[in-house]
C-alpha cells in the first residue's frame, strides 16, 4: 500500500525506480529484435535509402563548374551580367588558365556538357577552344580577351559568361527549373520558350493517364474480386490462378502480345474489319498512342488491384447483405449502402498500389506508347542512360516522388490511411 501512496516514482523490489528497471529489462529484448532485422535494415539502407538520398542530392548538386573553372568563377563574382558588357581582361585570363589546366586532364568536355544543358551550343565553344588553349603559355601570351574571341567568337557573347556565372554555385535550382520547363534567366527564373517545353506536359500526361489506368483497374477489377470472394473455394482457386497468370509470364512477352493484338494489321483490327464494323481504309489506331498504353498497362496492373480488393471482400460476412435485404433494401441499395462502403479500404489499397506503380512505369509505355503515350519515366530513363544528364533525371525523379507523397497525403486526409487493407 505504501508503494501506491508515496509521492515519488514507483520503486521496484530492489529500490530502483520501476521505470528504469523496466527499461533495462526491455533493452535486451529490443537489442535482440534489432539484431534480427539488422540485415534487412542494412539491405534497405544500401538499396533504397542511399540511392534515393543520392538522387535527391544529385538533383541540386553542381560542383563541377566551380571545380573545373575555379579562377574564372572567382573573378566573375565581381561582374554584373546585367550591365550587358563583357567581363574584364582578368576574367579571360582566368578562363584561359582554367581551360588549359582542364584540357590537360580532359575535364573541359565535362564542364562543357554540363553548361550545354543550360545554354545549347556552349559545348562546342569549350571543346574547340580547349584543344588550342592547351598549347598557350598563360604567363606570357596575354592579353587573352582578343585572343579568345578570335579563336571562337562564342567568347564574345555576354550570354555565355552569364551562364558560367549563374551556374557557378555549389548547389543549383537549375535542374528543378528545367524539370518544370523553366530556366534561370538574367532576371531570375523564367519560363522557357514554347518550343523547349516538354516536362510539364509529360508530368501532367503521366498523372492523367495513371489516374485513367487506376480507374479502369477499379472498374474491371471490382467484379472479378467480387466473384473471387463469392465462389466456392475450388473454383475461386482456379480463378485466382488466372488472375495471377500474368505474373508468371514475362512483361516483355505480354507487352509484345498487345502489339500483335492492337496494331493496325493486328488481330483486333482484322476482326473488326472482317465483321464489317470498321472500314478497311480506316483501321483503328489502337497502339503507339495513349490508348495503347492505357490498355496494356491496365492489363498488367490489374492483379495489383484485384488482390487487395479480394482480400477485403473475403472478410465481409454475407449476412450483412442478407440483413440489409431483410430490412427492406433492394439488391442495389444493399450493395451500395452496405457492401460497397465496406470494400472501400480494398479499393483504396489497390488504387494506391496501381497508381504508384503506373506513375513510375517505363517498359510498357516505351514499347506501346509511341510518342503520344510515353511517360515521364521514359524521359528520366533517357536522361539517365542516353543524354547523361543525371541531374535533370534526378530532379524529375524527385518531383515524381514529391507528387506521389502529396497524393498519399491527400488520400490520407480524405479516406484515411489506416483505412487501407492489403490483406
Amino acid at each position: 500500500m505504501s508503494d501506491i501512496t508515496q509521492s515519488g516514482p514507483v520503486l521496484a523490489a530492489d529500490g530502483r525506480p520501476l521505470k528504469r528497471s523496466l527499461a533495462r529489462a526491455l533493452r535486451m529484448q529490443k537489442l535482440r529484435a534489432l539484431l534480427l532485422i539488422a540485415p534487412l535494415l542494412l539491405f534497405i539502407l544500401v538499396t533504397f535509402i542511399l540511392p534515393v538520398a543520392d538522387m535527391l542530392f544529385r538533383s541540386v548538386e553542381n560542383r563541377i563548374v566551380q571545380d573545373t573553372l575555379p579562377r574564372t568563377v572567382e573573378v566573375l563574382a565581381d561582374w554584373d551580367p546585367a550591365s550587358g558588357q563583357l567581363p574584364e581582361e582578368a576574367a579571360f585570363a582566368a578562363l584561359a588558365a582554367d581551360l588549359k589546366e582542364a584540357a590537360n586532364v580532359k575535364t573541359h568536355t565535362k564542364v562543357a556538357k554540363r553548361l550545354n544543358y543550360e545554354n545549347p551550343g556552349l559545348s562546342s565553344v569549350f571543346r574547340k577552344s580547349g584543344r588550342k588553349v592547351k598549347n598557350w603559355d598563360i604567363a606570357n601570351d596575354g592579353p587573352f580577351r582578343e585572343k579568345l574571341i578570335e579563336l571562337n567568337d562564342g567568347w564574345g557573347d555576354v550570354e555565355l559568361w552569364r551562364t558560367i556565372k549563374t551556374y557557378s554555385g555549389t548547389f543549383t535550382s537549375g535542374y528543378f527549373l528545367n524539370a518544370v520547363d523553366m530556366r534561370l534567366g538574367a532576371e531570375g527564373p523564367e519560363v522557357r520558350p514554347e518550343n523547349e517545353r516538354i516536362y510539364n506536359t509529360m508530368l501532367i500526361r503521366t498523372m492523367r493517364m495513371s489516374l485513367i489506368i487506376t480507374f479502369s483497374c477499379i472498374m474491371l477489377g471490382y467484379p472479378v474480386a467480387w466473384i473471387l470472394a463469392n465462389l466456392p473455394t475450388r473454383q475461386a482457386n482456379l480463378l485466382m490462378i488466372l488472375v495471377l497468370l500474368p505474373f508468371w509470364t514475362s512483361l516483355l512477352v505480354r507487352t509484345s502480345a498487345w502489339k500483335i493484338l492492337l496494331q493496325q494489321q493486328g488481330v483486333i483490327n482484322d476482326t473488326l474489319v472482317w465483321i464489317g464494323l470498321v472500314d478497311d481504309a480506316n483501321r483503328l489506331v489502337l497502339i503507339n498512342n495513349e490508348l495503347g498504353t492505357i490498355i496494356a498497362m491496365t492489363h498488367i496492373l490489374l492483379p495489383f488491384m484485384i488482390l487487395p480488393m479480394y482480400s477485403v471482400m473475403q472478410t465481409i460476412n454475407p449476412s450483412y447483405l442478407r440483413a440489409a435485404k431483410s430490412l427492406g433494401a433492394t439488391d442495389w441499395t444493399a450493395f451500395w449502402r452496405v457492401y460497397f462502403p465496406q470494400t472501400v479500404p480494398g479499393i483504396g489499397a489497390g488504387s494506391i498500389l496501381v497508381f504508384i506503380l503506373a506513375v513510375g512505369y517505363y517498359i510498357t509505355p516505351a514499347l506501346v506508347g509511341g510518342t503520344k503515350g510515353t511517360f515521364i519515366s521514359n524521359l528520366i530513363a533517357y536522361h539517365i542512360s542516353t543524354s547523361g544528364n543525371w541531374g535533370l533525371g534526378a530532379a524529375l525523379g524527385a518531383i515524381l516522388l514529391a507528387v506521389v507523397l502529396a497524393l498519399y497525403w491527400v488520400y490520407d486526409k480524405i479516406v484515411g490511411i489506416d483505412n487501407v487493407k492489403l490483406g
Partner: protein
Amino acid sequence: MADASNVDAFVEFERVQKSYDGENLVVKDLNLTMPKGEFLTMLGPSGSGKTTCLMMLAGFETATHGDIRLGGTSINNIPPHKRGIGMVFQNYALFPHMTIAENLSFPLEVRKMGKSEREAKVKRALDMVEMGAFGGRRPSQLSGGQQQRVALARALVFEPELVLMDEPLGALDKQLREKMQFEITHLAHSLGITVVYVTHDQTEALTMSDRVAVFDDGRIQQIAPPDQLYESPDNSFVAQFIGENNTLEGTVKEINNGIALVQLDDGELIDCKPVNVSRPGERTRVSIRPERVEYNKERLQEGVHTLKAEVLEFIYMGDIFRTRLRVAGNDEFIIKTRNAPDQVRLQPGQQIEIGWLPEDCRALDA
C-alpha cells in the same frame, strides 16, 4: 399436416422440402402452421435444418418443393426485401460502417420515411431496448449484449409483424442470456409480434416459447407447448432431446386398458403408457423422467410393478438430490428428489426398489 383452410394461420409451411445439392434432402416434408402472435421455437441438434427453414421463410433460400404462406398468400416468389420480415442474425450483422442510430434508421430510409419520423422511431426503438444513450457509437464499440439489443431493435424498428431470430443469444454468457431471454419474450408479447426463434438450447426453448418444434433429420419430430413436450414426448428422440430422461429397453408383452406391460431385457416387468407401440411383441424404448421415479415404498401405488435398483452415487445439489442407480443393467439411471425435511438420503451400495405411475412411463419407438 397443415390445414390450408385454417383461417387463423399466419405463417404456413405446406409440404416443404429443401435440398442444396440435389442429392440429400435437408428439409423433408415440413408442415407447420402458426397463428398470429405466437412465439414458436425451432429446437434441434446441429445440422437438423433449422436455419434452412428460417432462410426459406426470410426468402434467402428457395424451397425445392412445397408452399410457404404468410398471411394467407404464398411468398415463394416474393423477394426478401418485400416480405417485411424482421430478422436477428446470430452474429447480429450490424453494419460496421454505420453508427447505431444509422443502423436503425436504415430500414426506415429504404422505406422513404421522413427525417423527423425516422428519428422519433429510432429513438423509441433504442429506448425500448435501453440503448438510448448509444445512438452515436459504432457497433464495434459495444459489448456483445449491447450489440444483441441493437440487433433486436433494428429488427423491430420498422414494425414487422413477423420476426425471425437465429440463435440470437448464442454468443452471450449464461447470465446475460437469461436476462435477454426474458426481455425478448416480454417485448414480443407486449408488441404482439409473431416470432420464429431458433436455438439449440432446450432450456431457452422451454422457457421462452408458446410452442416448440423439435427438429431432427429435416423433420419436425413434435410440435407442442413446452409442458406437453416435456411431459408427453411423442417419440424417443424428443424424450431424449428434451430434458433429462431415463431409458430402458424391452419388448411389449401385452396391452390392456391403455396400459402396456413391458418385459425389460433382463426379464423384469413394468407398466407403461403405450405411445408408439400397438402390438405385443414390438420392441420398445421406455422413457421415465428422473423426478417421476419414486423409491419411498409408502408412496408407491398398490399393485404396480417395481424394479430392483442399486445406488451407485449420491450427489447433493442444494435444492435437489441427484442419485445414480443401476437399474436393469443400466448404470446411468438417474433419479431426482427434492431436498425436503422428510426426504431420505440414499447411500451408495444401498439396495432399493423403485416404481412410478404407469402414465409417467412412456413406451416409445425403439
